[in-house]
Each structure stands twice: as C-alpha cells, then as structure tokens.
C-alpha cells in the first residue's frame, strides 16, 4: 500500500487496538479461491467460501456477547429486561413533560432508576450466596454453589456507585460485600483468596493437626484482610486447642485463640442495621462507628502487648494469632502479604487502614496506589470496570461495558449513569455529528437492537428499543421489517401488526405488496389479489385486471365464465375495488343476469341485464375493447320480442359508443376483438330497430 501517495495524513493510522483477528474454520481443502459476503438481519454476516473441491456457506454472529452467559439465559435476560426498560423510559418522558425540562434530572429520579436496577439485577442470576457458611458441617469453610456471573457483578458494582444514593455513606462496606460475593470471578485471571480457600477446603480432611499447617494461618490472615469475618471465626474454632482432650493442656493457648476470635466477631462495621446478619457490630451513624472503632482498636492494641504471648508455647499459634492482630491494627506489610491481588489489597485498606474513607477521588487515589503495590499481569474485565468507575469517566465505563460484556450491558447500564449526574446526562444524551447526529445513548440502543434483530427468537423485541431512539430508531426499524420474510402467513401478520403499532404505513404496504406479488406469481391468484388490494397497489391490480380480460374477455362461453367468476368472488365485495377490477365486478353482474335471461326468458331478468349493460357502458373504467363484445353478448336483449327494453336515451348512448369505436379503429395499436364478421352490422341493426320501437313507445 503506497501510503505516501495519499499524503495529507488522511490515511487513518490504527492508533487504538489492532483489529481482532478471528479464524474462520471451514474444513475445505485450500486454497480458498473466492469469498462472498452478505449481511442478514442485524449483525449476522453470511459468508460463502469457494474452493476447488467445493464451497461452504457459514453464518457469523458478530454480537460480542458475554461468553459466560448461555444462549437461553441471554434470551431470558433480553425478554426480562424489556419491561423495566420500557417502564423507565415512560417515567422519563412523563417526568420531563411534567417539569418541561429536557433533562429528567429530578430529586427522586434515582429511586426510579434504583427500582429498574434491582429488577434487572434479579434477571442476572439467583440470590447472592449466603455469607454464612453452612453450619451443619463444621469443616465447610467456603460454600461452593452456583457460580455468580461477571455480568451480575458488573451490574451491582455500577449500582453501588451510580444509583444507590442511600448507601453512599457506607460505600466502602458495600465494596467489601461485593468482593465477598464475587472474589471467585477474578480467579480466571488472578490469584484470589477465594481460590486458595477452596483448595484448602479440599485438603482439610487430610490434615491431622490444623494449627501446625502454615497454610491454615496464611489463609486466616487472608480471609481476615478482606473482612470475611465469619470464615475467620469458624476457622479459628477448628484450632486443636478447642478439642476436649486437649483443652486442659492448652488452656492459655485456647484462651488467646478465643480472645482473637471474639475481637474479630466484635469488629465495628459502618453499615445499615438491616445488614445485622453480618459478623461484627454494625453502626449506622459515622460518629458512633468512629467511637466504637477507636475503642476496639485500643483493645486490640492492648491484647497485642499482653504478656500472655510469652507464655504461649505453641510458636505457630502465637505467630499466627499475632499476625491476625497486625492485620486488625492495619499493618501495611501484613495486609500486603495476606492479599493476593490489588483489589483484595484495596478492600483490606478500607477495612483496616482507612475505615473512614469517603469521596470518590480519594478512593481512586487509593486504587492507584494498590495497583502499584500489586501490579496485575493482566486486567480482569471487572477490574477494568472498577478503574473506569473510580476514574469518574463515563466514557471509559461505557466502553468497558460494551467491549467486555457486550451490547446488552451497554444499552441497559447507560440508564444507571444518569441517575444522579446532570453532567453524565448531557454527555450521554447530546446529539453528536460524529455519530451521524445521534447521542451515545441512542448509539448503544441501536447496536443492541441490531443484536436482537439477528436472532429469530428476539427480533420481535427490537422495536421497543428502536422506538426509544428519537433520531434513527425508526429508520432501522423500517429496514428490519423490510427484511422479514413474507411467509409463512403468521410472520407476515406479525410484521403488519408491528407496522400498524408504530404507524409505518408505507412499510406495511410494501410488505403486503411483496406478499401479494409472491402469491400471484406462485399460482395463488386469489391470495395475490387480496394482498395487492390491501396494499392499494392500483398499478399492479390494473395489470391483473388486464390479464383477466385477456383470458376471459374474448369468449362468452359458460366454461370460461365459471373460471374467472370464482376469481372475482375471491376479491370479496368489501374490499375496495381498484382500477379495472371495478369493471370486473360489473361485468360479472351483467354476465350473471344475462345467464338468467337465457334460462327463464323473463322480462324482469332481461330488464336487470339491460341495467347492468348500461352501467357497464357508462362506466369509464370499462375498457373500450370490451364494448363490442358486450353489445354482441346483448343482442338478445336488443332484439327482445315483447317490447323494446332500452329507452331512446339508452339506445343513443350505445349508438354513440359505436361511433366512438369506429373512430378508435383509426388509431394505432387498435386490436379487433375476435367476433364473427357480421357482429358489428347485426348490433347496428338491432340498435336501430330498438330505437325505432322505443320512439314509437314513448
């Protein structure tokens, strides 16, 4: 590529990440001589690969969805999130209508968003794992049950920071809980305390004297450092000195173990009363908490300086317990040793070094410090999200959501960002030229709607997201509907219904037109005409009428009449006749009454037939080339024996038509109907006779 020739820097350098490269396994014998591409609905791309010995067609879905979530679960989430999303949108629009302000920023707006957030969170996975381990088995330290998903962890993290205004005061404590629930997720890229505990749990049955195992003490300090107090207390009670046969020999040792366990279970926590199930003492107000915390710390310090330690002759127990005290006293080195990664270290800082931390800026600085202390080898997606949130950059958070968790999260989480920030509201809702005139919110909804559109089971909910997009949603919806197949019939009816719902008349008429032509061409003439009438497609109906004339107009035999009479019946009497079809109705009526005349020879029937004839001849939609055959068919009426059936004026009308016909013959493209050669003269004669008799009668 001679990039120099381009000059003026127009060649876009790939500044960001290099494009993702995906292998496309095809199983054909190479080489591939040619490729063909075609987009299906949404972001499903169909590829054809041509090789010497064959070719293959494959479909690639470019949805970038979270691989942790199964397809069925993803669909449940997609369907479940429709109602909360739609409710929030309607609240948003009614609020902004009420306040006449473009921004729905409102003092209690966050409460609506919180409700939305809770409903969405409930879709993402079952209830949180119980923080208390199962008591029945004293050897069960950590519960390994249903694996939580990163998607739910991400959602909760954003809820903590952006939505739940009431718990802002105990934000650090909520992060402690968050890590307790989701530490296991980091195991994929980082070493975690959770995974170490799970491993230790497996070994537990084989360990004879637990307090002699260095891992026991290591894990105690780890669990304590991230505040899993219940686990620590439980593990401490597994200490050998609690066993009845040993209690008497190890009274002092056991007293120390129990003292530490009690201190741990009495650790003050700044959290709401509702979280009382937690181990530790909860304080809702900060001054109470600070007072209690300082008292607790001074007691821990006192224990640390106690002379009993010298008397404790079990070295491992002594060192292990004193290390736990160091953690409680916030010894930086102990915390660093006890934690496995920067997030755990970060949480331990909240618990033991800066329990009064408040303000996102200082939280961000602390995170930076922890990353420096324990630099990660690779960034876990949840860690990336957390850094984005702490960095107070909505764009980064949104980019992380979209890149790492897929379009569903980006489209739904965007609502959380605006819960309390007018700045975010402006950033996300302002239209941008670079995006083709849409806002970031709209962009993410469109992208998500594309994902929905590419699946047969989810495209039906795409319109709900598209109609929430003010600028380009309807355009995309039109393209989506246009690309739906018109068969089978239920799909067609569904499409028409969606068009009706969103007032997309031109699209529905187009879809119906496609259906009409499809039926017509596939030999289902009646269905074809029905749908073309629904589409009010005058030009095609006129052509169909022409074709009908061509096939039925020439002959008046009863056989052919039956053939196309059924056709006319199919058109139905209610549907609005368009163009030439109007003529066919009248023609049918005329033919019917003419048949009755030949059957019963009644004058009434004959008068009716004459009425139909006059209607036909007066009607401008009756093609000229039919005039002569019509008159020829009516000879019997014109020559009616008993009395003249046509009045003077009626006879004159018909004579005028004959005159017009003789003029038309001079024009080019005139086609003669196939009638007997004497047809014209016998009509003239009959009309003249009728005129004479009518004049006499009148």
């Amino acid at each position, binding site marked *: 590529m001679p990039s120099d020739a381009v000059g003026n820097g127009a060649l876009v350098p790939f500044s960001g990440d290099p494009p993702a490269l995906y292998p*496309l*396994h095809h199983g054909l014998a*190479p080489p591939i001589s040619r490729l063909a591409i075609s987009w299906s609905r949404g972001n499903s791309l169909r*590829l054809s690969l041509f090789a010497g010995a064959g070719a293959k*067609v494959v479909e690639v879905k470019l949805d970038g969805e979270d691989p942790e979530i199964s397809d069925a679960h993803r669909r449940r989430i997609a369907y479940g999130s429709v109602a909360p999303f739609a409710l929030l949108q309607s609240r948003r629009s009614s609020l902004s209508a009420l306040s006449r302000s473009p921004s729905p920023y409102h003092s209690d707006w966050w409460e609506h968003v919180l409700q939305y957030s809770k409903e969405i969170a409930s879709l993402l996975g079952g209830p949180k794992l119980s923080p208390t381990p199962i008591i029945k088995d004293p050897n069960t330290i950590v519960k390994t049950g249903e694996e939580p998903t990163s998607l739910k962890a991400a959602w909760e993290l954003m809820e903590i920071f952006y939505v739940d205004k009431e718990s802002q005061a105990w934000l650090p404590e909520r992060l402690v809980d968050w890590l307790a629930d989701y530490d296991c997720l980091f195991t994929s890229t980082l070493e975690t305390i959770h995974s170490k505990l799970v491993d230790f749990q497996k070994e537990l049955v084989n360990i004879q004297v637990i307090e002699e195992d260095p891992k026991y003490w290591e894990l105690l300090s780890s669990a304590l450092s991230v505040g899993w107090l219940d686990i620590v207390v439980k593990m401490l009670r597994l200490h050998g000195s609690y066993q009845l046969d040993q209690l008497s020999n190890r009274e002092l040792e056991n007293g120390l173990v129990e003292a530490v366990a009690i201190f741990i279970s009495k650790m003050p926590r700044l959290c709401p009363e509702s979280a009382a199930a937690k181990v530790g003492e909860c304080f809702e107000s900060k001054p109470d908490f600070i007072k209690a915390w300082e008292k607790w710390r001074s007691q821990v310090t006192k224990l640390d300086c106690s002379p009993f330690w010298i008397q404790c002759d079990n070295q491992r127990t002594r060192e292990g317990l004193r290390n736990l005290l160091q953690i409680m006293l916030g010894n930086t080195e102990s915390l660093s040793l006890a934690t496995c990664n920067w997030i755990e270290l970060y949480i331990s800082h909240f618990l033991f070094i800066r329990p009064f931390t408040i303000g996102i800026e200082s939280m961000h600085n602390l995170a930076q410090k922890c990353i420096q202390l324990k630099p990660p080898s690779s960034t876990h997606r949840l860690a990336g999200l957390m850094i984005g949130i702490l960095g107070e950059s909505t764009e980064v958070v949104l980019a992380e959501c979209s890149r790492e968790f897929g379009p569903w999260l980006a489209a739904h989480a965007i609502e959380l960002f605006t819960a309390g920030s007018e700045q975010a509201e402006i950033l996300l809702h302002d239209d941008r030229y670079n995006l083709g005139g849409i806002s970031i919110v709209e962009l993410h909804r469109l992208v998500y709607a594309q994902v929905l559109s590419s699946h047969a089971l989810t495209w039906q909910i795409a319109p709900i997201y598209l109609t929430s997009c003010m600028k*380009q949603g309807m355009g995309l919806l039109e393209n989506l509907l246009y690309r739906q197949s018109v068969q089978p019939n239920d*799909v067609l009816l569904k499409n028409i219904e969606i068009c009706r719902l969103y007032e997309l008349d031109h699209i529905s008429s187009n879809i119906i037109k496609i259906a009409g*032509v499809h039926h017509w061409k*596939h030999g289902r003439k009646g269905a074809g005409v029905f749908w073309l009438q629904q589409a009010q497609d005058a*030009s095609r109906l006129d052509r169909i009428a022409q074709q009908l004339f061509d096939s039925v107009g020439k002959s008046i035999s009863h056989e052919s009449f039956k053939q196309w009479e059924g056709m006319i019946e199919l058109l139905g009497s209610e549907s609005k006749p368009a163009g030439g079809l109007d003529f066919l109705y009248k023609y049918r009526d005329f033919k019917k009454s003419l048949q009755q005349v030949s059957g019963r020879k009644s004058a009434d029937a004959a008068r009716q037939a004459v009425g139909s004839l006059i209607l036909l001849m007066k009607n401008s939609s009756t093609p000229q080339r039919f005039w002569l055959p019509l008159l020829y068919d009516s000879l019997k009426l014109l020559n009616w024996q008993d009395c003249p059936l046509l009045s003077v004026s009626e006879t004159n009308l018909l004579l005028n038509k004959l005159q017009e016909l003789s003029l038309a013959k001079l024009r080019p493209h005139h086609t003669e109907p196939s009638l007997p050669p004497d047809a014209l003269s016998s009509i003239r004669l009959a009309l003249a006779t009728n005129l004479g008799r009518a004049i006499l009668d009148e």
Partner: protein
Amino acid sequence: MAKELLNLDSGTTCTSWNYSATRLAAGSLDGTLSIFDSRDPSSSSLRSTFKSRVHEGNIVKIVWVPPEYGDAVACVFADGILSLFEEVAEDSQPLQWKICKSFGNSSNKVLDVQFGISSASLKMVAAYSDGNVRVFELSNPLELRNWQLQAEFQNVIESVSAFGKALCLSASISWNPQKGGSQEASFLIGFNSNTSELNSSKVWEFDQAHQRWLPVAELALPEDKGDQVYAVAWAPNIGRSYEIIAVATQKGLAIWHLGSNPDHNGRLPVERVALLSGHEGVVWQMEWDMSGMTLATTGQDGMVRLWQSNLNGVWHQQAAFEPTS
C-alpha cells in the same frame, strides 16, 4: 462463532441471498443455477429446491430482483450475457424457474447489474465492457419479460474530448438504498478500465423534469480520478443528514460523505473522511449492514474485514476473519 449453513458442490463460483436471507441462489462453472430455501424463517437449515443448467458457461454473478417484483434473479455469465430467471406457476403448472429475458452479447459484455426502484417502477442498471451504462425500465410490474431502454450513457462527469475504445475489466454499481420518500432515485458506478475518464465512481441521479440521468457527484480526489475502481457500496441511511459511500480502489478503501444540497452546478458536496488500508490488492466485494454502521469487505488477500467509525468519527478496522481449514 461461525455456524455452517450449507455445503455446495465443487465448481460453485458465486452465491447470493435474497432480501430476507431465506433463499440462496448459487451459480456454477458449468452454468448451473441452484436455489436453496430455508424451511422456515426461524431455521437456518436450507434445502435445495431447484437445480438446472441454465447456460453454457460460467455464472460469475447473481443478483436478486427486488421482492416487489417476485422471486427472480439476474445471472451474469462469463460470456457477458445477462439473463433474468423467475420462479412462477403458470396456468396450473407446478412452480418452476423460467428464463424471462436476456441482455448483452459476447462482444459487449455485461459486467455488473443492480436493480433499483424509482418513481414506482423497477429500473435495472447494467454496466458493459465497452464502458457504457444502460438503464432499463420494466414496463409491466407483473412481467419481467418486457424492458425498455430508458437511457444509455458513459460514466463521465465533465464533457470530455473523445477517447479511444474503452476496455473494461469490471464495474461496480450500487443504488442508493433509500426506500420511498421524496428523494429522486440515484445510483453509484465505478469502472476498472483502461480509460481513466470512465473509472472514478460517480453518482447518477434521475432528473424528473428532463427525464434524464445526470452525474451529480464524483467520488475521487483530483489526483485519483483515473484510479481503477474495484468495488463501491452505498450505505443504508437510517437518519443521517448525509450519505455514506465506500469506494475501493488500488489506493485503499475510501469512505465518503455525500451531502444533499447541490451547488449552482447541480453537484452535491463530497468529502473523503477516511482512506483505509487493509486488503492488499483487489477488493472483491463490499457490503453495508442494515444500519449503515458496519462495512464488511473481502478481497484478494482472502480475508473478510469489518470497518466501523468510532465515537470521534474516525474509521478503523474493527475485526478480521481469516479462513483456515
């Protein structure tokens, strides 16, 4: 990530999906046309519903006729003939594919063909190897047999002095994919030929008042006008105030913005917003997704590449697919 939909016979040279991606037409070296249908729209499994040798010689390209005109395809053959085939049931006969019309001859080959709908009638634009562009109009919306030549012109925008006999290797046509609306029909065409005046991509718009096609924009910088064009693609517009068009030449893949307000000469404002490198050599095909936000391309390097614009309006390659056995 990739799901296999269908295996095709050896000798298959081209495929084309219909508007709803439920029918696939495939063409072969020996002139066999095959049609595969989905059992129902929600399933992706396909079964063969038609297979017949329709021509002596290779099918090089298949294009579906817009569905408003039935189930029909246009096949371009290697010998330059263009034939239309339609699926119809006539006079209580079973449903079958029938040829309705042929165009072109071996001395003046049809290189590309695309259909568009303007003023409620179907138009077919065909590019010929002598550098001519012909626009045909369907006279009866229910019959694909009768076409009238509406216009014939060369792909030049300035009145130029006569040039020698043009020899064109390939051409690429793309209609403005807008549906309905008041906008006049327009399409885009570029050539890969030995005549530089013909090559650059130009936008042609139908002038209703004078019933003629007029060039309204040229998508090439002054120094690039002679560059051979490999492929063009007009993006669907779901609400932008400007059009987006992709043009692939030997210099790379250019993304153009096309404004809607003509100047005093009737020319539309154009701006090249990106020139991207990716495929080395010829670009075979470019396709926009239905939102007009992602462009898929494939070319001589055997790769499929996806291109998008980021939040700052900077176009970049988003992903690439590399076929491996």
